[in-house]
């Protein structure tokens, strides 16, 4: 039955080229832009190398503190003190792993081989040893540095594959030496490249945390503001809530015993996806407002073209009233006919969907240096352009979403016109001129 519907739909496609092309372009346009939006947020939220554990991760990326006597005289920063990791959160019952990282926004980091004078700029990432258990880096050679290395401020580094190739022309370089910012470092591991599309882990090389001059092990008195981003892993996604409660409890107790300052988590720890919106270090983002803005755009992307499609389907149904009449004379019920129209239309919509998804890849790839930031109201470093990996674009989720969109668009646009055309009596339908 469905095969027959699709066969007829295919004939109709061939018979009405203009209708088909306007329809398919309209659908394609809608799906292309919606898919672009989906890909942007997929890359932000979904498990992407090396952040495969995003679904069971909690983060602390900002901290605010104020004197207990004056709430308004606050002080905040886009990071917390490492003291938190070291002394306060390490032993929570629902914590599988905890790590800290610090990116360098100031730039001017250079790297060279010991014997060569020629230098090149790199983006370093400063991390502790827990960082390597929270995130799932693929090591091509060697292994991560240990907490002992971090504590001893040893000049060791994990290189990205492309950096290793750039300076040594090989990835098998564990134990080799290079200079970073004028100091000699030893390579302890090489990992698969990380794209700037995952800014929480991206870098050219990873070095022990306290080699960054702004990061210290101790807290600034009672204040817990600092410079590291903290990543915590719960054993399962379901344990996240328990872990969150435990972290907040630790803070509550800490604030009870401080004499001068109150530390404010600003609703943290965040789920990973929520943390991607935390651009302002001094207050929690208004997620409701953000979501409303996105839904507004999403609805526009779906409904505006759907009106077009409805109009076209409706005029086509007028042309096919007679056919509907014949089918009903021969025993088709309204339900069957409605199904037929929707199925036929789904073929067209899916054709548009196919074009749409290709178009969205084209958009994302040609605008890859800025498209992932499109919805951000603050971009830390626009010069850091990401590369898009296979898993970001070609995965079951993207294709399923595209298909669901097609079905949705099809339902929105075809349902009402089809229903309308079925309102006519058989006689009316039979007697219409085409």
């Amino acid at each position, binding site marked *: 039955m469905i095969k027959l519907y699709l066969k007829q739909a295919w004939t109709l496609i061939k*018979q009405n080229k203009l209708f088909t092309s306007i329809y398919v372009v309209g659908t394609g346009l809608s799906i292309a832009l919606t898919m672009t939006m989906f890909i942007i947020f997929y890359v932000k939220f979904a498990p992407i190398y090396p952040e495969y554990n995003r679904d069971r991760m909690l983060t602390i990326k900002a901290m605010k503190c104020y004197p207990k006597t004056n709430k308004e005289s606050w002080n905040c920063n886009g990071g917390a003190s490492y003291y938190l990791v070291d002394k306060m959160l390490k032993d929570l019952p629902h914590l599988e792993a905890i790590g800290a990282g610090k990116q360098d926004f100031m730039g001017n980091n250079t790297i060279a081989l010991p014997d060569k004078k020629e230098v090149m700029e790199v983006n370093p990432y400063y991390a502790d040893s827990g960082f390597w258990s929270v995130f799932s880096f693929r090591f091509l050679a060697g292994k991560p540095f240990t907490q002992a290395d971090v504590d001893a401020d040893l000049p060791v580094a994990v290189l990205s594959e492309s950096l290793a190739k750039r300076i040594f022309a090989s990835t098998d370089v564990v134990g080799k030496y290079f200079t970073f910012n004028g100091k000699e470092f030893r390579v302890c591991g090489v990992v698969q490249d990380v794209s700037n599309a995952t800014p929480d882990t991206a870098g050219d090389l990873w070095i022990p945390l306290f080699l960054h001059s702004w990061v210290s092990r101790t807290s600034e008195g009672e204040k817990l503001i600092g410079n590291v981003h903290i990543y915590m892993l719960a054993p399962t996604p379901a344990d996240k809530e328990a872990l969150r409660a435990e972290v907040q409890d630790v803070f509550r107790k800490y604030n009870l015993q401080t004499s001068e300052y109150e530390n404010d988590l600003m609703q943290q720890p965040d789920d990973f996806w929520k943390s991607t919106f935390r651009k302002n270090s001094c207050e929690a983002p208004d997620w409701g407002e953000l979501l409303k803005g996105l839904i507004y755009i999403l609805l526009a992307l779906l409904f505006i073209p759907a009106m077009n499609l409805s109009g076209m389907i409706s005029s086509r149904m007028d042309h096919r009233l007679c056919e509907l009449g014949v089918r009903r*004379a*021969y025993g*088709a*019920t*309204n339900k*069957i006919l409605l199904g037929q129209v929707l199925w036929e239309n789904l073929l067209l919509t899916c054709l548009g969907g196919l074009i749409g998804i290709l178009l969205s890849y084209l958009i994302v790839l040609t605008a890859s240096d800025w498209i992932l930031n499109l919805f951000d109201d603050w971009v830390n470093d626009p010069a850091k352009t990401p590369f898009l990996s296979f898993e970001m674009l070609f995965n079951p989720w993207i294709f399923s979403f595209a298909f669901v969109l097609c079905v949705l668009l099809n339902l929105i646009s075809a349902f009402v016109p089809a229903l309308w055309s079925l309102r006519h009596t058989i*006689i009316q339908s*039979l007697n219409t001129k085409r």
Partner: protein
Amino acid sequence: MIKLTGINKIYRTNEIETLALENVNLDVEKGEFVSIMGPSGCGKSTLLNIMGLLDAPSSGKIEINGTSVENMKDKELAAFRNKTLGFVFQSFHLINSLNVIDNVELPLLYRKMPAKERTRLAKEVLERVGLSHRMRHMPTQLSGGQCQRVAIARAIVGNPEIILADEPTGNLDSKMGAEVMELLHKLNKEDGRTIVMVTHNEEQAKQTSRTIRFFDGRQVM
């Protein structure tokens, strides 16, 4: 076979009420070939539509095959039409985006019949109407007479006991018209199907077993 009692049909527009049928009583026996004649607008097509359960009368009783259809719901009516009735229209009403065999299979489609069985039956009836060599053609590639033969094949593929034909030769030249009439007579005589046909053609009416004449919504004789 078909029993109409006291059928009235009134069309209402905003201001005017038109009486299309007035107190029509009619009995069609099994195996009869009945023709309905009358001038344009006398209500004969309306009567045919009511017999075919495509339209409901304003009042009156319809009994087909001993079954009263008054209280049937849309779904039951559809199933009933599908099994018992076959339609042939003046302007063929073939579906242009389906090829000949798919057009013929149409009534079987709504019976949940396996595809193989459908194709077998459709091929059989196409052979009977002499069009088995045109199975994969589109309706637009056929002549008018061929189209009407396809429509007849479609009407009989579901093996209905009654065939309702609304001026089946109205859009055809006399040669093709004769071919179609021949086919209908064959169906009546060989298969014993009951046929009710609306026509303008006195010649054709004479060949049928009974002619009912209509004038202004009333049965004249």
